[in-house]
């Protein structure tokens, strides 16, 4: 009884204490406080200083910074969108001459390098805990101590006159950073500086040196090539400038005046680039040069050469006299007539000189005869009069990389004990160099290794001192990817981690080292000052004043041009361009003394199959593997995710007794790996292929122990002429193992099965007007009313090359979560946009008539999903959008079942964004919870922003004000977004194009997405 009473009393007092009003008060004050403090691990002061608000940070308003992408040497200009002090999205800079608005899948993903959870958080020093077992731990230490350690070590070596026993390995830097590094290396006492780039195009540069005396990768003018033949150059994927070239190429390939520029690809493995070709010819590995040589022979023999002096022509004819289409046909796998046809088309006199283009030298086709092949391709251009026209040495790439052979020599020096200190900045040779070269073993012989790298990788695993540097998005810098183009990088946000700019470290070290060289480094302002000084020196002088009456004053004006204005303008626009001097090149006579055709003959295969190690669109040389988006987005050709394997034809697989997903041991003379079988029908006979870039062991949680690294199979021996890696042609044997490790594939078959998803029209039919616009079927239902706007999209299947840039842009823009390999096995990707790929038979080509079909929500006017939702979570807006209300959705998933396009994605789990990747989330887009359906919104937040901008400027929304993230990113400009109610908009006009069709039109869903049929060549 007493107990009961006590309970009663205490419960009543509780009610008294927490009165409703008090409760609400507590709720009102505690709620926002909790919400604020839970925002991010970074203190709010660092993001937005409320006390003294910086003028460019307005909560809720995005700030854009022009910068340059640092993912590959191409140097595309970017515009980085920041919100509340965080970079949330990267877009191509429309004013930048390289990419002109587009950005590739890797560029989009550079945000995930910035916010990578595995980044080195601050300086660390290795402490050996168990020398016998080789165990060690990394201890954090303050920056100043770490930097002093570097200074002390360098000082000791320099003072002892052993500065040349320091090795500095950097990427092939350009612009100010290159100049600074050169100065720094000198300050270190003449350190050995190697500019390492795994894909350094040594063969192309060497061949141009031999032929023309210019060791350069020229600029290829795809925009003016009426006929293009590519000998394995993957210019839409990696190569020297994939985004810019994709844009030029797509522009040139549009049907104009009833004609379409022809594109032929010759290579042993169908690349994504080759998939866009009108003709694809499978040749045996390392025989592309023979094809080109036979073409030269035919062109000269049939007197179709253009713009070449007769005596030079005779000399070239003599060079290739030992080959002809008939002699190379059996070796290459092409027919003699086929080669003759290629030669005739390439040198069509009706076109005039310099209107065709041959490109070669792709990494995936560079083997033991890479230089000879590159020379032959260059000669092919020469005899067609292309050099100086479509092959432009004036705007050549500034890529100034050391060769692989230089790295190998450095490794030998390390092993010989000649290197006492190695300073490695942002390169990963341990991963990317052929396994047989054993750079890791060489590094182990170096007493002390210092790494200046943003991310941990296989090379930093051997470092004794880690000085983590900024990523490009946090850095000042500039870039000079090709002559005349100067891009400017500016930090877009506060550093995410305790990192420093490599230039700042160099300057601080340079000054701390003292001596004569200290004066070469600015006393204050660090790298920023250094950069400004460089640009000040580079600033073109203003036009001299015509009326020079007062000499002193005008001199003063000339000495002090308005640098601040120039600098601000360059920063705003992302750089500047300078005029390029045209370069005349001529064949050097020494060329005619070489045995070109002898060097072209492919090596005799040592084993049963020839291996092609090709650069990956997503991972490049491997540096993209720790970006979850790049792992998750399926490979454009194979549709594999989260892994790589060994590609082989079904015949090869049957011959070794293996099937898709089965592990096979791949063994070469130089190494052995186990890899999962991927069946790929588009390989030349006797060829197996492995993409470069996976098989990491120390590159963070997303990359490690995934896929296979083919460099383990490659020979350490460089290609003799150029010193490059022999990426292709390694002989391998395959042994099937009784183990299944299938790689998740998001598309299981590539046959359209008569469904006509991706349609085509032949060029002849298009020109003849023999196209039948689809009839809109009769509908019993009234159409929706769209009083102001009706947003729509058009996608040109003829321009789409499958590059996945749009997919990555969508991930970044719309907070799409990454699901991981296990969930991919059940097809549970969350991507709102996928690129479907279909193979159709293509007469006259060894390859398929390949169709890429970007598939996203079609925003149907008569949407099947809308009628079946029991709770109106999906409905039609008056602007024609098929909207999804996440917080109304209960997750019956009926909408997806009823969607003929299957573009809806269900949140099977609560999405996770591992910190600090969550900082990338776009604040304008809801992050979805588990149990709800989601899909493409046509970037409704961007529509809203465009409408608001128009309203602020007191004008109606114009075409171009609003574009979706996918359309913005498309390098080929295949996607156009706009208002279909505006008859003048591009999307409206494209909707009336003869090629326009709607996917699965027979269901009368009336989509807002119009596809333009692919134009197939006339057979």
């Amino acid at each position, binding site marked *: 009884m007493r107990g009961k009473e006590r309970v009663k009393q205490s419960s009543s007092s509780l009610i008294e204490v927490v009165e409703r009003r008090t409760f609400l008060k507590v709720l009102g004050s505690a709620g926002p406080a909790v919400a604020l403090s839970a925002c991010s691990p970074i203190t709010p002061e660092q993001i937005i200083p409320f006390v003294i608000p910086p003028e460019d940070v307005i909560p809720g308003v995005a700030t854009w910074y022009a910068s340059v992408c640092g993912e590959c040497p191409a140097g595309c200009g970017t515009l980085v969108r920041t919100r509340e002090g965080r970079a949330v999205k990267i877009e191509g800079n429309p004013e930048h001459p390289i990419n002109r608005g587009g950005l590739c899948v890797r560029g989009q993903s550079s945000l995930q390098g910035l916010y990578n959870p595995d980044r080195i958080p601050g300086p660390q020093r290795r402490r050996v805990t168990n020398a016998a077992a080789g165990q060690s731990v990394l201890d954090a230490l303050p920056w100043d101590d770490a930097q002093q350690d570097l200074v002390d070590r360098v000082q000791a070596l320099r003072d002892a006159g052993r500065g040349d026993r320091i090795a500095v390995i950097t990427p092939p830097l350009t612009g100010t950073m290159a100049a600074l590094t050169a100065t720094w290396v000198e300050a270190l006492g003449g350190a050995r500086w190697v500019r390492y780039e795994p894909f350094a195009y040594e063969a192309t540069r060497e061949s141009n040196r031999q032929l023309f005396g210019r060791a350069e990768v020229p600029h290829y003018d795809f925009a003016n090539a009426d006929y293009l033949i590519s000998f394995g150059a993957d210019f839409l994927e990696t190569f020297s400038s994939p985004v810019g070239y994709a844009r030029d190429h797509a522009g040139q390939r549009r049907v104009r005046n009833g004609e379409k520029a022809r594109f032929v690809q010759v290579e042993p493995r169908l690349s994504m680039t080759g998939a866009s070709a009108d003709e694809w010819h499978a040749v045996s590995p390392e025989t592309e040069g023979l094809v080109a040589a036979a073409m030269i022979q035919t062109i000269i023999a049939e007197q179709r050469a253009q713009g070449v002096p007769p005596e030079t022509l005779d000399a070239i004819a003599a060079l290739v006299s030992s080959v002809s289409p008939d002699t190379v046909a059996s070796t290459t796998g092409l027919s003699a007539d086929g080669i003759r046809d290629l030669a005739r088309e390439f040198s069509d006199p009706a076109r005039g000189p310099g209107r065709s283009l041959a490109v070669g030298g792709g990494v995936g086709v560079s083997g033991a005869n890479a230089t000879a092949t590159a020379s032959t391709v260059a000669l092919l251009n020469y005899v067609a009069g292309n050099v100086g026209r479509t092959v432009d040495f004036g705007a050549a790439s500034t890529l100034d990389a050391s060769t692989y052979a230089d790295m190998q020599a450095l490794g030998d020096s390390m092993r010989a004990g000649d290197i006492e200190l190695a300073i490695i900045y942002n390169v990963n040779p341990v991963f990317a160099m052929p396994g047989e070269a054993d750079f890791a073993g060489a590094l182990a012989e170096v007493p002390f290794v210092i790494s200046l790298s943003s991310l941990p990788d296989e090379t930093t695993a051997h470092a004794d001192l880690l000085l983590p540097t900024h990523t490009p998005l946090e850095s000042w810098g500039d870039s000079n990817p090709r002559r005349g183009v100067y891009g400017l990088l500016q930090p877009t946000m506060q550093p995410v981690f305790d990192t420093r700019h490599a230039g700042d470290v160099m300057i601080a070290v340079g000054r701390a080292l003292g001596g004569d060289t200290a004066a070469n480094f600015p006393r204050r302002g660090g790298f920023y000052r250094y950069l400004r000084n460089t640009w000040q020196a580079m600033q073109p002088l203003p036009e001299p004043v015509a009326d020079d009456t007062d000499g002193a004053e005008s001199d003063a004006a000339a000495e002090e041009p308005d640098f601040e204005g120039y600098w601000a303008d360059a920063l705003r626009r992302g750089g500047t361009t300078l005029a390029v001097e045209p370069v005349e090149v001529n064949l050097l006579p020494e060329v005619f003394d070489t045995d070109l055709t002898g060097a072209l003959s492919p090596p005799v295969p040592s084993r049963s199959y020839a291996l092609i190690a090709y650069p990956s669109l997503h991972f490049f040389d491997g540096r993209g593997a720790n970006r979850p988006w790049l792992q998750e987005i399926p490979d454009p050709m194979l549709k594999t995710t989260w892994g790589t394997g060994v590609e082989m034809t079904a015949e090869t697989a049957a011959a070794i007794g293996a099937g898709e997903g089965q592990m096979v041991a791949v063994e070469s003379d130089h190494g052995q790996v186990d890899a999962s079988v991927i069946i790929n029908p588009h390989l030349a006979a006797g060829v197996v292929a492995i993409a470069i870039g996976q098989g990491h062991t120390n590159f963070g949680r997303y990359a490690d122990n995934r896929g296979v690294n083919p460099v383990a199979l490659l020979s350490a021996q460089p290609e003799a002429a150029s010193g490059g890696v022999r990426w292709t042609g390694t002989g391998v044997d395959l042994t099937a193992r009784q183990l299944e490790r299938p790689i998740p594939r998001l598309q299981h078959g590539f046959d359209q099965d008569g469904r006509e998803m991706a349609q085509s029209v032949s060029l002849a039919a298009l020109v003849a007007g023999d196209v039948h616009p689809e009839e809109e079927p009769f509908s019993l239902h009234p159409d929706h009313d769209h009083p102001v706007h009706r947003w729509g999209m058009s996608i040109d299947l003829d321009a789409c090359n499958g590059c996945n840039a749009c997919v990555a842009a969508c991930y970044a823009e719309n907070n799409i979560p990454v699901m991981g390999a296990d969930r991919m096995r059940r*097809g*549970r990707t969350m991507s709102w946009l996928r690129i479907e790929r279909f193979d159709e038979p293509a007469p006259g080509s060894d390859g398929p008539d390949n169709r890429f079909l970007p598939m996203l929500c079609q925003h149907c006017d008569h949407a099947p999903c809308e009628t079946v*939702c029991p*709770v*109106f979570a999906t409905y039609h807006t008056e602007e024609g959008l098929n909207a999804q209300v996440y917080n109304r959705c209960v997750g019956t*998933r009926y909408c997806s*079942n*009823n969607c003929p396009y299957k573009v809806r994605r269900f949140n099977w*789990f609560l999405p996770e964004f591992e910190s600090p990747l969550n900082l990338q989330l776009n604040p304008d887009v809801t992050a979805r919870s588990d149990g*709800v359906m989601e899909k493409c919104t046509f970037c409704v937040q961007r529509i809203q922003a465009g409408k608001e901008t128009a309203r602020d400027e007191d004008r109606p929304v114009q075409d171009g004000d609003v574009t979706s993230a996918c359309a913005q990113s498309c390098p080929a400009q295949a996607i156009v977004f706009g208002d279909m109610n505006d008859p003048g908009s591009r999307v409206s006009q494209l909707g009336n194009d003869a090629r326009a069709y709607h996917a699965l039109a027979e269901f009368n869903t009336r989509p807002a997405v119009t596809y333009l049929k692919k134009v197939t060549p006339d057979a």
Partner: protein
Amino acid sequence: MSFAKINDDILRTLRAPGPLWYGGVVVAISLALVGLYAFLYQARTGLGVAGYEHPILWGIYITDFVFWVGIAHSGTLISAVLFLFRARWRTAVARAAEAMTVFAVMTAGLFPIIHIGRPWFFYWLLPYPNERQLWVNFRSPLVWDVFAISTYLTVSAMFLYLGLMPDIAAARDRIKDWRQPIYKVLALGWRGTSRQWHHHAALYGFFAALATPLVISVHSVVSWDFAMAILPGWHSTIFAPYFVAGAIFSGIAMVITLLLPMRRAFKLESYITVHHFENLAKLMLTTSLIVGYAYLTEFFVAWYSGNVFEQGTFYDRMFGQYWGYSWMMFTCNVILPLLLFIKAFRTNLAALFVLSIFVNIGMWLERYVIIVSSLSHDFDPANWAGVYQPTWVEGAITVGSFGLFFTLFLLFIKNFPAVSITEMKESLEQPAGADPANS
């Protein structure tokens, strides 16, 4: 046989249960708890713990839902439709079938909730006035489902209760334990006056007439979940009759599966005779033939349509990744029931029991094949999925649903007369002066 013996025999089943019953209940409750655990785990972790594979976004749970709704069909058919047709043989099996109906609908009703992504918001599917002024979409077949299922549950529960009322009164008078007060309440003061009997008979007839269209409507509406979608393999006008026939088919199979063991355990052989089972078998054979005809019609229509999507789907169903399921379904639902043409088979209860199990499996597979194989192979070839791989969660919840169903059924038959006392007496020759209810 006298009224008194009927009372004794049937009310005997309500006496203290034996170990067999206890064992059964423990097993059933354990299974139900396993299912509950799996559901809570799924709700907490995310629906992804089930085996869904894009684009197969409906799977085991909807299969289970349709299966249980189908099971629920025979009860109303036997009690209401056969009552209206005055098929007197139904008397012995009607009560068990009605109870089975109610419990099967209750089980089925859980599956849409288990299936949805946010089960805690399942009530958003109900049109209730709310301050957010949100309403449901009456164009969606799922909303029709909500009404069809809840109506069916209400009517079949009322129908069961109505028939039970005189029997509860009998139990009230005979059972002298803790249940008596409950019986007293539930009997609603039944005294067996002729006025009460008059009203009861009128109401019973009325409910039978009300329930009969529901037999058709419920499974028609459930079939429209599929038929209203544009997916090939679902989008078909024959779905409503096809599903109703299938439901009755599976329901009768389940009645046989349940009644045979119950009859033996409760020693009710003299009430539920081989004759009754033979009649059920005939009904099963009829519905099997209808279902088989529907299968053939689907294939014919797919072929005759010349539509690439329809043809692709049905070719895939027969020879694609799900061929094993499809052929097993054919065997169980169409080929094996042909044995029922043989009288010796129909009257062999052991054989009938085995066949009923096969039919239960076959009908479950039918729903699985319709749902999963159609979704796996729809319009866009780039989407086509691999083979659906259910997880332990789906298995546990499916098994748990059987656990729940059997728990309810076992509790029912031990606490309420499993054979209608009233109707058994009515079917006897009326002894002079005897009051059927109070003897």
